[in-house]
């Protein structure tokens, strides 16, 4: 077989397996089909990526949401809903990428979420026009690499990827280090709420000092410092704005909450801008989105209106605790420690659960006892109810909306069940 014929056979197999898996009700099928395809043709991803425009999104937090925002931004120019190929289910490793590209038009623009550990492979296989780097922080340390090592790997991979534009978060030193050898970078002041992983300088192993008193600067003695940004996110009485260095401004008005999502949207707008989409139009299109894979949606759980929130690691929790911080309603916190969550919940001690003081808090999930001990030492009064729906029902007795914050499988289970 010629390489071309083998690839199209493998792509057909990918689609066939996906359809079959969906038909027997065994999930969305994306990964299974992609695996079969890659086994038939190890270079299937290169073939499926050839001749199309691809944008990649990676980082520890916000990948799925930013990917969805970017798809929303590009769709109007690409032919409307469904015209952009994407791994909407969050299968962000090669098998998921194959599955996303095997369906739809062969020349459709693709926006792919990429697991942090697979950026190097994706850059080589897909030769993307844009790579969006959101942030890097500790996540599932029992099974993933240390963040400093990841930053170094991104750096050499991006240094070798001459065609890609990099859209990078200038507020995260590990991301700035990673983008340091890329040929073309657009710097976005996307913010960094959680800084515990950012203090050690990746350039010299010295210390990074962050400007105090609300400034955004950071610098190390070795000279490694925050780059001059191309676009920043500003807030005033009238709302949130993306403000470019050349004076352009565009409103950021999203249907999903949180400062971090405004930053994700500005990263996406900058990426869309590189493909020729007007940033203002991109942001308007993103404003239509109201939830991402169930995140931020309000569901009825046993009669209780429940806002579903997902946080997987300390940086993610930092953002969400800030998001819910001004509310007074009940909060259900759900923790599992399955493979997809990381088996070691020690990171609970990196999260400022103290911020939930004064709220009605219910600890739930398979590791609710670890959480209960953490809350005890945070001096946050709480109930412990192992079963998540029962936990929501009890939290709902105080009236009003309940915020349910779960880590990966805890969130997915409640989303799927109710």
């Amino acid at each position, binding site marked *: 077989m010629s390489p071309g014929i083998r690839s199209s056979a493998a792509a057909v197999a990918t689609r066939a397996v996906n359809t079959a898996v969906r038909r027997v009700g065994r999930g969305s099928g994306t990964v299974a089909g992609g695996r079969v395809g890659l086994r038939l043709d190890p270079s299937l991803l290169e073939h499926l990526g050839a001749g199309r425009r691809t944008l990649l999104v990676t980082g520890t937090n916000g990948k799925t949401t930013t990917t969805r925002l970017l798809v929303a931004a590009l769709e109007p120019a690409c032919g409307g809903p469904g015209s952009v190929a994407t791994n909407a289910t969050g299968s962000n490793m090669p098998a998921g990428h194959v599955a996303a590209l095997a369906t739809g038009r062969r020349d459709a623009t693709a926006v792919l979420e990429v697991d942090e550990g697979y950026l190097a492979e994706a850059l080589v296989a897909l030769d993307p026009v844009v790579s969006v780097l959101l942030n890097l922080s500790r996540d599932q340390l029992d099974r993933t690499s240390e963040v400093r090592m990841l930053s170094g790997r991104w750096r050499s991979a991006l240094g070798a990827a001459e065609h890609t534009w990099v859209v990078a978060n200038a507020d995260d030193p590990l991301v700035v280090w990673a983008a340091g050898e890329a040929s073309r970078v657009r710097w976005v002041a996307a913010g960094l709420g959680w800084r515990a992983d950012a203090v*050690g300088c990746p350039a010299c192993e010295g210390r990074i000092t962050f400007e105090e008193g609300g400034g955004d600067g950071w610098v190390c003695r070795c000279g490694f410092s925050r780059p001059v940004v191309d676009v920043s996110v500003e807030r005033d009485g009238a709302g949130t704005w993306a403000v470019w260095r050349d004076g352009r401004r565009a409103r950021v008005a999203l249907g999903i909450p949180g400062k971090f999502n405004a930053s994700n949207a500005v990263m996406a707008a900058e990426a869309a801008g590189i493909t020729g989409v007007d940033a203002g139009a991109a942001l308007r299109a993103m404003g239509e989105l109201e939830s991402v894979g169930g995140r931020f949606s309000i569901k009825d759980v046993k009669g209780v209106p429940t806002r579903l929130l997902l946080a997987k690691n300390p940086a993610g929790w930092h953002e969400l605790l800030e998001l819910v911080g001004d509310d007074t309603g009940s909060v259900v916190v759900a923790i599992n420690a399955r493979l997809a969550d990381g088996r070691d919940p020690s990171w609970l001690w990196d999260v400022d659960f103290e911020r939930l003081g004064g709220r009605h808090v219910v600890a739930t999930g*398979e590791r609710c006892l670890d959480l209960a001990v953490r809350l005890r030492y945070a001096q946050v009064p709480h109930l412990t109810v192992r079963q998540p729906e*029962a936990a929501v029902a009890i939290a709902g007795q105080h009236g009003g909306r309940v915020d349910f914050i779960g880590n990966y499988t805890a969130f997915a289970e409640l989303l799927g069940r109710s």
Partner: protein
Amino acid sequence: MSLVVVVVYPELLGTYGDGGNGVVLWRRARWRGIRSELLMASSDQPLPDGDVYCLGGGEDGPQVQAAAALRSDGRLQGAADEGAVVLAVCAGYQIIGTSFPGADGEQHPGVGLLDVATVKGQGPRAVGEVLAGPFDPGLPFLTGFENHSGVTTVGPGASPLAAVQVGSGNGVGPGHLTEGAVSGRVMGTYLHGPVLARNPALADLLLDWGLKGAAERRGQELPTPLAVLDDAEEEALRAERLASGSPGRRRSRRRHRTAPAGDDLRGVP
């Protein structure tokens, strides 16, 4: 009575939530009406005076930096000589020993507070739940989570802390089926959790040592025995972890999952 708890270099040695050990000691002192202060000691400052020092886990590069900073600062050795308590976890455990491996493959000199030496293990990384029986008869089983690739040999100047039942602890092979080490008031362990949250009896042992040391240094009367706290939540967690580490693990998991919600409901003091 008062107690100063110092978390050493959290920006370098704080990868696995081990700063929680400082929080646990501080809270358990305060809950008993003991004046207690919790200090986060940054590596660009001289180490402050304290009664208990907590060191946590860290990545390879920061681990080497932390060891170098502690050696040049010298205050941790000084405090330990004067009877202060040191609890060092994972990378911290390795650096308070005599030597440890860096990411470069080289051995680096440790702080030398504890007679243990660590080399890089040949096998796969030790990742998972640990269950270990302490040699101190006053302590119950230790539960924790390990994540390291070190093999640590306990020398004649220190004693192993516990015998490993589940997990790797100090490493594989003859003479290594132990976990952690202790000498005087200096203790090292591979257990995350953080270890004191999962093992409140160990926290109270260190607290007792810390108060004794503080009294000795300040020429004060020795402290009275610690008041008993309501550790119902810690005990529930321990029971679950101990069951999950035992051979009856699958059965006990299933039992938890199918328990009716009402039985699971537990109030909190």
